[in-house]
């Protein structure tokens, strides 16, 4: 009898541990929650939102934040913003890339190609730190995966610029953010009404831009997401069917002897 009580104790302790997820308990403020189209078992990115998000990244974020693990060609690949081949070439061609050395040993600049990696705004981390008041703007390639809360966290920080509470002293170049850990951020509010003029005519409200750029960053961190979800559903369905067949075979084989499986 007591055994069952221990089992119950055990399971309640287990549930308790899951409820209070240790990795997320440090956050002071409950993050804003968005119903992202890419969550869930069959989640997909909103193509138009990804394209708008790239525009926000390109026109706003990219002046400080690098994205060194992405290539321009990724923008045209399936499961991403899926710009047309022509558009991808045009995007790459608008960038000047330093290449070399040539046969004379000289470095030279040339037009970007789709195979080039995203050009970083600063030559190195030290330069970017120096140019940004001592705070290095993190590379955005895997930023969504590098923060507890992921997409919701990025969106929350973008929407979290508020007046500091009374009595909170902020140094020059430091801003209050409701969702940033420690509530202090060295990036001024990057988004403001109309800072971007969307080519597809969508109204560029701060909320819209924050959602679009977060979607774009989520794709950048997990470009395989759509393929992963699609393959995953197939794999699980296949495994379940195979499990049923093996289960039936097992029952049949074990029925030869008078024992239960």
């Amino acid at each position, binding site marked *: 009898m007591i055994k069952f009580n221990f089992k119950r104790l*055990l399971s309640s*302790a287990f549930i308790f*541990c899951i409820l209070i997820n240790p*990795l997320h308990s440090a956050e002071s403020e409950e993050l804003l929650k968005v119903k992202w189209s890419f969550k869930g078992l069959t989640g997909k990115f909103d193509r138009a939102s990804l394209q708008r998000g790239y525009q926000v990244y390109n026109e706003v974020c990219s002046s400080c934040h690098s994205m060194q693990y992405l290539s321009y060609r990724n923008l045209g690949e399936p499961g991403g913003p899926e710009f047309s081949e022509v558009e991808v070439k045009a995007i790459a061609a608008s960038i000047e890339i330093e290449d070399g050395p040539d046969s004379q040993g000289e470095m030279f600049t040339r037009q970007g190609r789709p195979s080039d990696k995203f050009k970083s705004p600063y030559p190195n981390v030290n330069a970017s730190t120096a140019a940004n008041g001592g705070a290095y703007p993190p590379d955005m390639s895997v930023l969504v995966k590098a923060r507890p809360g992921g997409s919701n966290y990025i969106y929350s920080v973008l929407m979290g610029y508020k007046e500091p509470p009374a009595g909170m002293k902020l140094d020059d170049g430091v801003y209050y953010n409701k969702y940033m850990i420690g509530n202090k951020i060295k990036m001024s509010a990057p988004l403001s009404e109309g800072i971007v003029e969307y080519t597809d005519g969508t109204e560029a409200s701060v909320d819209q831009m924050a959602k679009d750029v977060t979607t774009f960053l989520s794709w950048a961190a997990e*470009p395989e997401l759509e393929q*992963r*979800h699609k393959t995953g559903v197939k*794999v699980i369905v296949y495994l379940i069917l195979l499990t049923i067949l*093996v289960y039936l075979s097992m029952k049949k084989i074990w029925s030869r002897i008078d*024992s239960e499986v």
Partner: protein
Amino acid sequence: MSDHEYTPQSKAGKWFNDRLPLLTLGAHLSDYPTPKNLNYWWTFGGILTFCLLTQIITGIVLAMHYVAHADLAFASVEHIMRDVNYGWLIRYIHSNGASMFFLAVYIHIFRSLFYGSYKSPREVIWIIGLMIYVLMMAAAFMGYVLPWGQMSFWGATVITNLFTAIPLVGESITTWLWGAYSVDNPTLNRFFSLHYLIPFLILGLVVLHIWALHIPGNNNPVGIDIKKPSKDTVPFHPYITIKDAFALLMFMIIFAGFVFFTPNILGHSDNYIPANPLVTPAHIVPEWYLLPFYAILRSVPDKLGGVILMFGAIFILFVLPWLDTSKVRSAVFRPIYRQFYWIFVADVLMLGYMGAMPAEGIYLVLARVGTIYYFLHFIVVMPAVGLLEKTDPIPMSISEPVLSGGAEPSLAKKDNDKI
């Protein structure tokens, strides 16, 4: 083991088998008499073999694309995730595979603890199993360092610093391990080398583990010795192979769920930040499967003491067959031990939870209580309960129906009823 002589049908088979009896081995593995009452907790041996092979195969492919250099490791992992065909799948199988491996090994170990599989005559199987477990922890720890993220770097720093606690030579040993004066490129490089080596050591030990198992044969839920082969046993193939396959498929469904739908939930988000020796993460936590030991380490105020207790928590398992004084194997017939068993399971889970929390306040107090109880379980509970407990009547054989209390003549081991 069955002593039947196996003779290959074909002439070529006979010729080969006379020179290297691989076919005899195959026949032995196929006919191996296995208790017919094994429950699903016994399917984890097969599952673990699958886990090991999965890790080795995916690992070999990853090593073709990974670069073990402090400046390039992080980028090479992103290269695998983005540019290598199905690289994301291979890496997610490998990283989640480590967790699935430990999930399975913990179930396997706790099954052994419940049914007394570590007891005579299976002590050597148990000890080889523990050696595999220790090597698994080493391999997992070094593997976690390879992506060279923040948690990789700081985890490596915390764990290697444990060796500085050794009196007199600690500092020198740590420098020697690092190959530098801190965790740095030489450390990463040698960890990669060892991470590639260890799985093959494990594979060798797995062969010994199975070999040692095939001498006395499997324990079983009733925990009694059985005659082999007899009506209590079934040949390994097809009865156990099909059952193992079924359990393995169920396991693979869970595995695939992690890989395809939530591949990063068992990792730490900080590990997607490139390693930075100048910035310490707010909380340095190891992977979930090492958390109970981490809790024990931190519950001792003295560094050397913590290290000793942490390693002691693992190595006390090696002498468990001699700490357990009960002659009855299965906890099914041990009403008192059974309760302590569940308390112990709860204790380990609690320690794991405390290992994930900051070492302060109530967490630290509970971690200390948990640590003390962990050792009490082995040093006091196991010997004492074995001596004092009045065990339930044990059936003569698996085929025999469960006994009602008073069936005296059927008791196989009356001498176990002490007091």
